[in-house]
């Protein structure tokens, strides 16, 4: 069984995000970019499947500008076998990415697709679900644990706790934070990754319309939190919670 994983290039989680002066988005020039952390978890899970003999090949997919190749290389250095890069300098919204992935799925015929539950830049939490719908496949979102057998047993993180579902294959999985702890890309594997193939495609060649369906009106910094105050007594706290905050 082939496994396709999605790896998105996002601003590194350590970077302090700055909104552009014209409020059209966030500053990405000269900012360190890395693989979306949830996608690292997806790559790790796929590699573990391969190590356990449950998967035969791990393919890393990324859509976006030329530098996405670096993100794919990271996946290859972790242990993925080859990459597919859909080159695009356009803004790619979740639906566009889901359609591009569907086109690649049609071509590659993987038995399982694993994507992050969301990307830490736009936090959309949509691509996996949209892809499952477009493919007509089962979906197991917010996966906390996966077990491959006849189908896939997925332990999902839901508001009330954990939920167990059994999916038929082929399926789309989205990863949650506790699914696994991704490995480091070791130096020997970084060197080996240089030689692994990355196929480059375009949305035109795949016949996918990637035009944005959503319009961003304005991007703003969240309001800075005001400094707190110290209260002297419990009575004062209760009074403030009741009358000022209005929460009790």
């Amino acid at each position, binding site marked *: 069984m082939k496994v396709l994983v999605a790896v998105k290039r996002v601003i590194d989680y350590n970077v302090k995000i700055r909104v552009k002066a014209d409020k059209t988005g966030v500053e990405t020039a000269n900012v360190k970019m890395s693989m979306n952390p949830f996608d690292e978890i997806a790559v790790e899970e796929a590699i573990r499947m391969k190590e356990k003999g449950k998967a035969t090949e791990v393919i890393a997919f990324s859509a976006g500008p030329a530098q996405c190749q670096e993100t794919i290389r990271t996946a290859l250095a972790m242990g993925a076998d080859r990459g597919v890069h859909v080159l695009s300098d356009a803004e790619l919204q979740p639906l566009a990415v889901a359609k591009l992935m569907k086109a690649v799925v049609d071509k590659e015929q993987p038995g399982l697709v694993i994507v992050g539950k969301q990307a830490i830049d736009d936090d959309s939490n949509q691509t996996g679900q949209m892809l499952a719908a477009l493919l007509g496949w089962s979906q197991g979102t917010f996966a906390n644990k996966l077990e491959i057998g006849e189908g896939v047993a997925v332990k999902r993180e839901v508001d009330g706790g954990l939920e167990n579902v059994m999916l038929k294959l082929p399926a789309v999985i989205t990863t949650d934070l506790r699914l696994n702890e991704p490995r480091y890309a070791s130096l020997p594997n*970084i060197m080996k990754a240089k030689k692994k193939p990355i196929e480059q495609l375009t949305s035109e060649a795949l016949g996918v319309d990637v035009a944005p369906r959503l319009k961003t009106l304005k991007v703003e910094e969240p309001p800075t939190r005001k400094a707190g105050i110290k209260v002297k007594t419990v009575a004062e706290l209760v009074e403030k919670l009741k009358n000022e905050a209005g929460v009790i």
Partner: protein
Amino acid sequence: MSAAMRETLPPPAAPASPFYTAEHEAFRDTLRRFVSREIAPYVDEWDEAGEFPRELYRKASSIGLLQLGYAEEFGGVPTDPFYRIIVSEELAKAGSGGVNASLMSHSIGAPPIAALGPDWMKRKVLPEILAGEKISALAITEPSGGSDVANLKTTARREGDHYVVNGQKMFITSGFRADYYTVAVRTGGPGASGVSLLLIERDRPGFSRTKLRKMGWWASDTAQLFFDNVKVPVENLIGEENRGFIGIMLNFNQERIGLAAGAHGFARVCLDEAIAYARERHTFGKPLIANQVIRHKIVDMAMKVNAVKANLELLAWRVHQGERPVAEICMLKNLATTTLEYVANEAMQIFGGAGYLRGAKVERIYRETKVMTIGGGSLEIMKDLAARQMGL
């Protein structure tokens, strides 16, 4: 911007640096995570304990940290010297020279084996060291002196198919826990032409060691070694008999660039820590960094650190091209280590009382500056060697 100025900018596709490729940066990423997860949270604890878990060697090997620059057939990963510079910069971020010194002690202990050792030794010993299973140490310095290597006193007397080793070694990094010791011994007459290198395993009868308590590098197990009629097979000879001195000197070149890279890494950490603290700390109703004295201090620190970096990278590049600029390596070691002393001192000053407390990175780094200007060839010895190389 004028049109003329724009022409001097690099084309958009030019690499960001002449020295670092995407693979270098990928490894830096791996190291940064490794250091922040596996080392940085524990350095205070390990420093107080006087050692770190042996397991760290294996973990370091799992990301390729120990294999840098060794041939693939012995379990290594051939690399250019810029990977080592990256290692020094990233390891420095944990703020503990002691952890780095012992974790990487094979970077001085193992190169003579790789360069001069007999085949059996390369096949057996190197893979164990590079896998983090066995620890390697280099033992040159003796109680009677480290600067005057040519006059070392530990003897190895040939008796049939064995040498019998007698003497002492001093200040040996990883000396307490190492499994393999690369030891400089006297096999011949006086002076440099009587010196050989021997591989001595820790369990040889008559070989013992004691741990030394030090000003810094607490997490490193520095030891004094004692050899009392230790029988060592002749096949443990590294290189030819009485030709060990040149091997030691070649090894020193590499060690000194490594020490310079380490000093640069720690100086950079002091600078970054000082800037962050000066932004955060308020005195007299404003941030420290708003005072011109402090701002100028930081600029002076940054200027010196940048000079070290430029010098280090250029020399590393020249060595990689096959040059052996000994005088310049000596000067680089001095420039880097004295810059570290300066920058650590200034950072401590900016921290005020807070820098005097255990647990502050700058406090430990400050205590660990002296070993850098002494170990691997002291300031004075570096100047002396440079002067001779320059034909003065």
